[in-house]
């Protein structure tokens, strides 16, 4: 660590205010592989990315009685996009430049770390990760910091990407074994996307996988940034990450071909970073459709045979089921209006239609640049076999002309119309079994539970609990703000909690305590008798 980094750590440590001590955290690899019911240890809760809780106390019969346990006001501008993590009764969550530790029983603050603001984009922060007694937090200017889970003090700080060149960070790191896996965002500039494994104790780089050739290589795509938390199969010992779109973003003429490994699902060996297989949802993307959406892992019957699957509802409007042992496609289908392809090739990849590349006089494209879905987490319910995703059917106009050049965005696009709908996709057929309208466009992720419930938020700030089997609303409550995070669930003191965010407030929901036995009737006294 050079003196500059040390100085940064000292400054940051001073910014954390400790109001109380905590028990030692003891999250190890075994716990991460098999998280206890009273925890939510990483961005997805477990490694599979299914966001399916095994808890059943809150269920279709009693959810109508759900009531507020507590609300935590961050007192900051901004909208919570983070997934809180829970370990040893302590919740940790973030906004850009802010990390909180709060008591999961009461919502009381334990500490708050206010990082020095940086000049990078402050578009969002998705949360911290935990291993043993350390939290791992990515600053908006793409540094990885290790925080003391007990105090919020900064233990070390390493630069993951150079924000001066145009990269920034929002992601919650994925922890696998002795590796903290991180990437960075940034396609306003022609940059080389990557995934990096960092030593959890020292911050030292272990390996780096680059999505594209170096940025001085002519006639190739750059970027392919990895900015969402991937998933992990401990049995196959493979990590799965989706990569972002290529740059120059809307100008595809200067980067002919498929543009590997942009808009690609990668299976990598976590020990070495070596590529094991890849599948590309958007070959030669010219519409900004990162394929970083959660690669959800599930086992189940497909065509009557037990299969190890990876599923992605991709930003480009396609839903994929892939054999996660070898990357072979099992099913490709759309889950909303899509007009940019000429069909699907023999390997299950969409075939881009050259007539739907951005053009000087504009092209009408579905979906729009925000995509049919985005960073919001989907959920997979094994009981019903439904992959439930917050989707945005949409249309926009895309422009590109020679004068737009070959750097960064390199064109222009304008959204025309979009709406929000929760789609329940049957993974075996790709058919949508039910759709639930969410208003203009929603931003919330999805949680399913073994109690038969689906939790999400609509576009106007209503928390919703739906019957997973039918999509019917069973409970709702107003959040008073935009719901941009994905709900989680855990058990504390034998009771199930649902955590949702609305605006900059975190809400904890639970069933009310059983009513106390009615007090014995007192004999009226003369003084109280009229």
């Amino acid at each position: 660590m050079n003196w500059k980094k040390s100085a940064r750590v000292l400054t940051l440590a001073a910014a954390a205010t400790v109001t109380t001590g905590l028990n030692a955290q003891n999250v190890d690899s075994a716990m991460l592989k098999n998280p206890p019911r009273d925890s939510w240890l990483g961005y997805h809760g477990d490694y599979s990315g299914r966001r399916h809780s095994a808890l059943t106390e809150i269920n279709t019969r009693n959810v109508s009685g759900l009531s507020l346990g507590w609300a935590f006001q961050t007192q900051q501008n901004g909208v919570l996009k983070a997934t809180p993590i829970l370990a040893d009764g302590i919740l940790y969550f973030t906004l850009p430049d802010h990390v909180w530790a709060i008591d999961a029983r009461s919502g009381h603050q334990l500490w708050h770390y206010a990082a020095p603001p940086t000049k990078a984009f402050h578009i969002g922060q998705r949360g911290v990760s935990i291993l043993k007694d350390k939290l791992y937090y990515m600053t908006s200017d793409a540094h990885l910091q290790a925080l003391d889970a007990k105090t919020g003090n900064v233990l070390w700080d390493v630069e993951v990407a150079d924000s001066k060149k145009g990269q920034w960070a929002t992601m919650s790191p994925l922890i696998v074994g002795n590796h903290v896996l991180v990437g960075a965002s940034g396609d306003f500039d022609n940059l080389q996307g990557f995934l990096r494994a960092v030593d959890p104790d020292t911050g030292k780089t272990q390996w780096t996988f680059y999505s594209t050739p170096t940025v001085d290589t002519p006639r190739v795509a750059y970027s392919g940034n990895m900015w969402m938390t991937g998933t992990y199969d401990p049995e196959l010992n493979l990590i799965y990450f989706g990569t972002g779109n290529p740059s120059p973003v809307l100008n595809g003429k200067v980067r002919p071909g498929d543009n590997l490994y942009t808009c690609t699902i990668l299976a990598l060996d976590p020990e070495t970073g070596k590529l094991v297989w890849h599948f590309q949802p958007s070959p030669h993307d010219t519409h900004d459709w990162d394929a970083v959406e959660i690669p959800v892992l599930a086992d189940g019957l497909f065509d009557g045979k037990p299969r190890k699957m990876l599923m992605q509802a991709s930003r480009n409007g396609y839903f994929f089921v892939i054999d996660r042992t070898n990357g072979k496609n099992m099913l490709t289908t759309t889950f909303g209006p899509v007009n940019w392809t000429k069909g699907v090739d023999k390997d299950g990849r969409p075939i881009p239609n050259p007539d739907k590349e951005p053009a000087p006089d504009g092209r009408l494209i579905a979906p729009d640049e925000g995509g049919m879905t985005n960073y919001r987490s989907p959920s997979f319910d094994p009981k019903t076999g439904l992959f439930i995703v917050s989707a945005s059917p949409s249309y926009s106009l895309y422009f590109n002309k020679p004068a737009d050049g070959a750097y960064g965005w390199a064109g222009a696009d304008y959204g025309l119309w979009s709406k929000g709908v929760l789609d329940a996709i049957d993974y075996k057929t790709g058919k949508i079994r039910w759709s639930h309208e969410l208003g203009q466009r929603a931003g919330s992720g999805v949680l399913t539970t073994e109690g038969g419930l689906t939790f999400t938020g609509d576009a106007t700030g209503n928390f919703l609990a739906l019957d997973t089997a039918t999509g019917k609303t069973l409970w709702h409550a107003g959040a008073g703000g935009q719901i941009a995070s994905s709900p989680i669930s855990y058990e504390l003191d034998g009771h199930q909690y649902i955590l949702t965010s609305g605006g900059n407030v975190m809400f904890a929901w639970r069933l009310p305590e059983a009513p106390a036995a009615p007090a014995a009737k007192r004999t009226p006294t003369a003084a109280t008798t009229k």
Partner: protein
Amino acid sequence: MRLRSRNILLAAAVAAPVMLFTFSRMTAQAPQTPGQRPTPAQRPSWTVGSQGPLPEHAKFTPLQAESGGALFIQNCAFCHGKDAGGGETGPDLTRSKLVTGDKNGEAIGAVIRNGRLDKGMPRFSLSDTEILNLVAFIHTQQDASMSQSGNRRGVDESDLHTGNADAGKKYFEGPGGCTQCHSATGDLAGIASKFSGLRLEMQMLYPRDAKTKATVKTKSGQTFAGTVEYEDEFTLGIRDSSGIYHSWPMTAITAKLDKPVEAHVTAMSKYTDDDIHNVLAYIQTLK
């Protein structure tokens, strides 16, 4: 990498080192000489597009623009581009009529404070000084971009002149089904004088401002009519012709909604790009 919904954390203004905004996107552009702003007559017409003469802005200090630049990067650049030239979900501010017409932040400031919630832009709670610094930066960027030649991003009106007006008229009156709701001599008379260029095209494809109308019958038998102000799964709110707002739980009413824009959404799945350019060429004749 674009996120449709924006979460923007407003941190305190950071004193920025000198930011000249020589971002690489601009490196391919013609060099500018600081302090020398060409007169409108000197600007090559193909770069000016429909922007008109150079705007007249209030004078701002370089320090204000620098400070505004730092705020812009944190809060605005993700949607509007680092150089305010657009590229995200947010439009090119250097070509914005609102920015052009703004002298001292009165128009830009209102947008920053109130947001444009219907278009996904949140409200920003910034101090007056911070807003003025942002305004200084945006004006500086507009001046810089309007002064340069070549390599401009964005859409000029001339880019959109690829359609055939006769074919567009045929589509409008025939398979497009447009005449079921519209008339060239009625509601659309003079539409091309009201809107032009990309604005006209977007209005044609999806008239964002078209209000949904509702007729509501309550359980007690009362009837209300008005434009829909709020609608979700649980609540309907309308404003009646006298401006009074009424709202009901959905369970307490029966409501008939008239959504004129739905026909436009349906049309989006039917149009070819040629149809769009042709109809636009036809609409452009309705002056």
